[in-house]
């Protein structure tokens, strides 16, 4: 239905990350680290089947997860970061994120 890009941005430090889209595993990678000079660990492109996409991010070792819904009726760009306290934060943009 809609273009979706999920960027795993700040705070990843050797984490095993699982990303679920509408309950199905979209991405899994171990030992994921933020490349600090660009503030990005991984960029994942996907196509959502439904206008409202259910996204879940899991950090396996930290036993932390976050789930949220994103409107993909327009192209959606989701930035996910691990906060200093260990929690997950996300933001949604209609423009691609840029890194320098």
């Amino acid at each position, binding site marked *: 239905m809609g273009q979706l890009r999920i960027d795993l941005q700040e705070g990843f430090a050797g984490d095993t990350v699982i990303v679920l889209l509408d309950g199905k595993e979209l991405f899994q990678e171990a030992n994921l680290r933020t490349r*600090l000079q660009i503030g990005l660990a991984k960029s994942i492109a996907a196509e959502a089947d439904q206008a409202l996409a259910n996204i879940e991010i899991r950090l396996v070792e930290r036993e932390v997860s976050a789930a949220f819904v994103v409107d993909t009726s327009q192209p959606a760009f989701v930035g996910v970061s691990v906060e200093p306290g260990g929690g997950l934060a996300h933001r949604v943009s209609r423009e691609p994120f840029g890194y*320098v």
Partner: protein
Amino acid sequence: MNEDMLSEDLLETGNLEETFDDTEAAAGTPRMPVSGLYTVVKSTAPPRAAREELRLDVDGRYPQMTASGVAPLSLSSRIQWIASVTPAGANRWTGGIWFKEPASAPFPYANVDIKVSNTVFPHLRKATVIFSGGGVPKRVRSFKFASQYFHPVEFEFDRAENLAGDKAVTSMNTHDHPNRPGTLPAENLTIDEVFRRTGFDVRASGGAGAVPMAIAAPGVNPNWSDSEMHDAMQTFWSRFANAAQWSLWVFFASLHESGTGLGGIMFDDIGPNHRQGTAIFEDAFIANAPAGDPAPAAWVRRMRFWTAVHEMGHSFNLAHSWQKALGPPSFPPPWLPGLANEPEARSFMNYPYNVAGGQSAFFSDFEFRFSDGELLFMRHAPAQFVQQGNADWFDHHGFQQAAVEADGGLKLVVRANRAKPVFDFLEPVTLELKLTNTSGQPRIVPEHALDAGHMTIILKKQGRPARRLVSYAQYCHQAANQALNSGESIYASLYASSGVNGWDLAEPGNYHVQVCLHLPGQDIVSAPMAMKVSPPRGYEEENLAQDFFSDDVGRILTFDGSRCLESGLNTLRETCERLPDHRVSVHARVALGESLGKNFKQLNLGEGRLPLRSAGSAGGTVRVAKAKADDARKELVSALLKRPDLAAETLGHVDYKYYVDAFAAWLEANGDRKEAENVQAALYKTLAARKVSAKVLDQIPRPAGTAASPKKTAKASA
């Protein structure tokens, strides 16, 4: 002070009353900027000795009101110091030294008093610095002005052949775009000029050139990967060397292989010498002005210019504005604890589109500069943290004054109770912390000031990123304070080998251990303690290491025993059998004996994994493993009394006294008062021979008719 460390011809001690005469104030003389690099006027130092330097930062562009310097201590060592200064008269500044590297160097001065003899002829300008404080005679040094800049640097700009030359932006007109600060001067600003204003004497190395692109063949991706750029750097950069040097290669290309989302990258975090190369991708998103922008071409040129300086900033080891506080355990440390993020900074190191109000708000306030914290770092931090090709990327990124007391106050020392801080392979590392009130007044400190919960402990193996030691347990004590009289010290042991991050202090090699003690309102930072772990002495040690460096063993040693971590207990028993005379066996026997000497409560939850629920609802029961007094006694006698001097050395004085006190108390409780007295006598004799302070010895009950009972002392008491 150990003046033997100082080469006589490098040390000039002034008269005790040395100070400046302020009557020289130059009325009517035009005030000329004095900031910059000064070097020692005259030195008879041997050629190999580092020259003495002063960096004075009190006027000119973005003054940081800071003085810093490098002073040689011997042929092979030197100290770097930094002071915050304030005006104290005409061309005179005074202030306290708040940073020394290495902090343990024999350079006790705490204050500087700087006087510049100014003149319109820079080559005649001189500065005199009086170092004082620290309980030693004043030290006076004279310097000659060398440069208005703090460091040299060379830039070499190359571009990919298929990139139009006008896209490789290295200059821009500051008024071309209407969204800008109202006070921004109109000028043609170059990248070189940005870094000159930052404090660098910028030169060009080689000529700007084009990297040939023989990529017409089908299937060849014209975009660049990091490894391709690294290869190009080695081939085309006229200054390339696997060495630290104040030199940087800047590469302009169309796109990175990852696409338009990457506007630039300091790609050189590969190999032994990081931060020597950086790239800007001129056809990435930075070439797209926001919809409706009134001057899109000017916006793009400014964004390309901004991106180039941003990437070059990374090569000076600057982190992004929002990453300044990152540190251990997940990331390499900033130089000192306490670095703060600057998410709204109008700095080259912040993303314009991430501040409140977005890029428009950013550029309306942006003055084409770095933040004060970044300027302080680039101008005054130890050069090895900033210089290209030196410290690894992000290791020691950024720099900020911690709330460190420069003189007086409290002093924290980390040390090992042995002649040389060299530990055997497998030997658990127990260090001693000593906190001393160095002020003339009593000080109030938390009762458990030296508890691990009050401190950050950094372990750094040579050539590796620093790691934070995270203890297996954090204790929550009732808040209470204690008075520490002038000159009085408190002590505690620090088990540094392992924690929840694993065995950070186990591999053979050289390490530095540094502790930052967080007290209300101030941080006390110890000098880094250098120590070494020796290589294994044979197959037996290497073979045991595979089982020894485990989480179970780490926990058993930390908590002085266990009756349930069977795997770890078996490893410790095997260690005692196979290496009976090794220092590690002292630690192993203490842990085994401590847990066998008492009835030991264990929570039994049955077999197998259970879903999370309360112990009660899971049918849990507490059972008691009976004490094995004979076995406990045998282990503790062997550990503590068989070779008491070795035991005191490997366990550390604080822990040795704690364990022997506890053993004596246990003997008395088991009806063997005579043996308890003998044990205390042995303790006294051992610690007295090791020249432990009389205050500690006085705490040990003496058998000579006093009939004092052995008493248990706190592990962290003086």
